[in-house]
Structure formats: structure tokens, C-alpha cells
């Protein structure tokens, strides 16, 4: 049976992990490769690097990070953040990324998703959707709105409709972040996750809000997510990946242990 996936996410800025594993055993807490090796040994199912480097010129650093990681860690690696065109995607894949996540560029130029899927295959094209719950959803305003530029810019686009669109364009997976829940540690937006997961046939990764193991369980059992992304609860060693998987297994969720 296919296992539900647990995916730690590392924010990387100028080649260094910003919110990394808070763990004394780590040689260099700021090195993305050391963090990746740590999570590999812990039994993470995949890994996501999110490049939050502000300047485009300094993004080349990320390629070196990806190359070094791919030489050490033999698990699927997704890289996102600032991906603008098919050349950026090609560079990341050649460096050793297995999947590339596109967000703002996909909204600005939806054909990019189609071109990328045709060129590199749907399996490596992830579309990241940052969604915020509308205060007063009605026929004019969608229940969840897509935001871009790292959550700074509203688009007026309905997140559920956008998920369907990117599936049609050839995306292989959706990384769905609730901006309302992100950083709260109060749990994922279950309703958003479930609505999107039911609207598409491609896998959906729930993101934003994980603060406890029960939250991970909810994302799978109630949100019908195929995978969960989490940062803080793993980085700060509140729980290990193994703790999470044992908890999920006890509660009837299929995981790889």
C-alpha cells in the first residue's frame, strides 16, 4: 500500500539554512547538506528546499547546494523559490533536484507549467499554491484566494479553481500552503486541503500550521492529503520523523517505517 509521505522543509537563504534542525549533534546547523543527511537518516520520505534568497544573482548558490545534497542523499528532493522559467527548472534538475516547485511564475505565466511538463515530464513539476481564506466568501469572492510573491500579493484567483487549472496544464503535484495557518502551529487548514484534494487527481501536499502529531494525522485522515510538509515541529526536535510515523501508524495511517 502506498505510504503517506512526511516531508521536512528547509528554508535556505544564500546557501544557508535559515530555520534548520535545532540539534546539537549536527556538525553545522546552517549547512543544508548536513540537515538533509540528518533527515535522510531519520527516515523522511522526501525533502523540500525552499530558496528564500532575495537577490536573483545569488541564487546560483542554490545550485551548488542541490548538487552537494544529491551526492549525499538518495531520496527525492524538491526545490522551489524564485523559479522563473524553463532554464531555471533545467538548471535545478541538472544539479540533482528530482522535482521543481513553481509558484509566482506559474500564476504570471500559466503556459510555463505546460511547457515544463512537456519538456521535463509532469512527475517533476510541482505547483506551489499559497492560499488565504476570504473573509466573506460569496459568488464574487472565492473561499480561498491565491497569493503570490511569498504571500504579499493577492491575485483574486480562486485557489481551488487554480489547482484544477494547473492539473490540466500538466502539474504532477500540488504543494498547498494555508497562509492563515502557516506559522501558527495550530494545525493545517483541513477544509482547504480536503477541498483541493478532492478537486484534483494529482497528489496534494498539505502545508502550513503543523504543531503536533495529531495535526499530521488530521491532514491525512480528514484533509485527505497525500503528503504533509512540516518545518518547525521537526527542526526544533519537538518530535522526530520516527515519532510522527509511529503515531500515524498507531492511528491507522499507512506510513513507511
Amino acid at each position: 500500500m502506498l505510504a503517506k509521505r512526511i516531508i521536512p522543509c528547509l528554508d535556505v537563504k544564500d546557501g544557508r539554512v535559515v530555520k534548520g534542525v535545532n540539534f546539537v549533534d549536527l556538525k553545522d546547523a546552517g549547512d543544508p547538506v548536513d540537515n538533509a543527511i540528518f533527515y535522510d537518516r531519520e527516515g523522511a520520505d522526501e525533502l523540500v528546499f525552499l530558496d528564500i534568497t532575495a537577490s536573483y544573482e545569488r541564487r546560483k548558490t542554490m545550485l551548488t547546494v542541490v548538487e552537494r545534497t544529491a551526492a549525499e542523499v538518495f531520496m527525492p528532493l524538491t526545490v522551489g523559490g524564485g523559479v522563473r522559467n524553463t532554464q531555471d527548472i533545467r538548471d535545478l534538475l541538472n544539479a540533482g533536484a528530482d522535482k521543481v516547485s513553481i509558484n509566482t511564475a506559474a500564476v504570471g505565466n500559466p503556459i510555463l507549467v505546460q511547457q515544463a511538463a512537456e519538456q521535463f515530464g509532469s512527475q517533476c513539476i510541482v505547483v506551489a499554491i499559497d492560499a488565504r481564506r476570504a473573509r466573506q466568501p460569496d459568488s464574487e469572492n472565492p473561499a480561498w484566494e491565491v497569493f503570490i510573491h511569498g504571500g504579499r500579493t493577492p491575485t483574486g484567483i480562486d485557489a481551488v479553481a487554480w489547482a484544477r487549472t494547473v492539473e490540466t496544464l500538466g502539474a504532477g503535484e500540488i504543494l498547498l500552503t494555508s497562509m492563515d495557518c502557516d506559522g501558527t502551529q495550530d494545525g493545517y487548514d483541513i477544509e482547504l486541503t480536503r477541498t483541493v484534494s478532492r478537486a484534483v487527481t494529482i497528489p496534494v501536499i498539505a502545508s502550513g500550521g503543523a504543531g503536533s502529531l495529531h495535526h499530521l494525522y488530521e491532514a491525512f485522515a480528514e484533509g485527505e492529503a497525500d503528503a504533509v510538509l512540516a518545518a518547525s515541529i521537526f527542526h526544533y526536535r519537538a518530535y522526530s520523523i520516527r515519532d510522527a510515523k509511529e503515531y500515524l501508524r498507531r492511528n491507522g495511517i499507512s506510513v513507511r517505517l
Partner: protein
Amino acid sequence: MTIAIIDYGMGNLRSVQKAFEQIGCAAAIITTPQQVRDAPALVLPGVGAFGTCYRNLDRQGLIEPLCAALRRGTPFLGICLGMQILFTQSEEFGSTPGLDIITGTVKRFQFHHNPGTAGRIKIPHMGWNTVHLIKQHPCLNGIADGAWFYFVHSFYVSPEDATVVATTTEYGGCVFVSSIAKDNIFACQFHPEKSQTVGLALLKNFAAFAEHG
């Protein structure tokens, strides 16, 4: 011995090469018909579309030397699309011919479910799943029944000859062939280069198989 990884413009060859390096095995990326002819052992990785895979191999003039090597007994490892392309044809875009080394068809997963309801089976089949051992092969030495491997695919192979089936895997109620073995050929739907320790063990088995048979 240096294992030759065929580059035909599909998929991440580097990760396969790095995985072999990790287990202390030399691996080179090759592109030409002569290199295919000379290779002591071949690996055909690949992700993407079946039709493009065939066209790219054809454009590089690799189909004849590859088929000849397969028939001659050169140890061969096919990964994902590199397994599917061995088959007679794929259902992708009507019907697309393959190398026809293994008689059979490549089919798309089909799950019937109403949109908007619970329990949808997602395509691609993406993530970690278990393999059930059907027959023994040197490439599977020490791999436990029920071992976890990483998959990402929307199509699966359906061989006519059941004796080639090495492992099966279940997804969404469909039991499909997740690896095949026939003489010098071992090919798998899953990605050993992305399957952590167990994947590296399989690659090590292939390297030993290539060296000693």
C-alpha cells in the same frame, strides 16, 4: 568494471551515477552507439513520456546497438521508463511502439471515481510503496519481501509471459508488475537511486551481477 548509463535526454542521470559512486562502483554516462556496443553493463534510466523516449533513442541511433546488447547478454538495468521501453508497445497516445524485447503492453492506471468525493486514487502513483517478491534474482539478493521503494509513474507494464515477473506492487486495488527479470535483464518501475539504503543495496546487487553474473 565501469557501468555505462545511457544518456538520451530523459531524466536525471546524475542521481543514478552518484548512487553508483556512493556504493563504490564506477559509472560513466554514455551517448553514442559505439559506447553502447562496448559497454560491459548498461543502465537505462528515464522519466517522462514513452514516445519521446523511443524517438530520442532512435535519433541517437541507439535502438539497434541497445537491442543487440540486450540479446547478446549484456547485463542490463532498466529504471522506470527504462523498463517500460523494453515492452512491445504503450497505450500512451493511442499506441506507441517500444523495443519489443519483452512481449507485453504498457498501460495507464485507471481509477473510476466521482470528482469531489472522498477516496480518490491519485495519478501519478507517487511515493513509497512495498514490493512483493515473486521470484528470486541476483539483483534482489537480501531485499526483503515488503521492502519499501520510491515510485513515480502513471503507466505500468503488463508482460505476456508471467515468468518474467520479479516483484509486484499494489496501488489503488491494482496489483501491477513493479519489476521484471529475464536472463541478463533486470528492470524496475521504482527508483532504486531514490530509495535510500534499500535502493543502494539493489544497485550494489546489480553491480555484482554485472561483474560476476
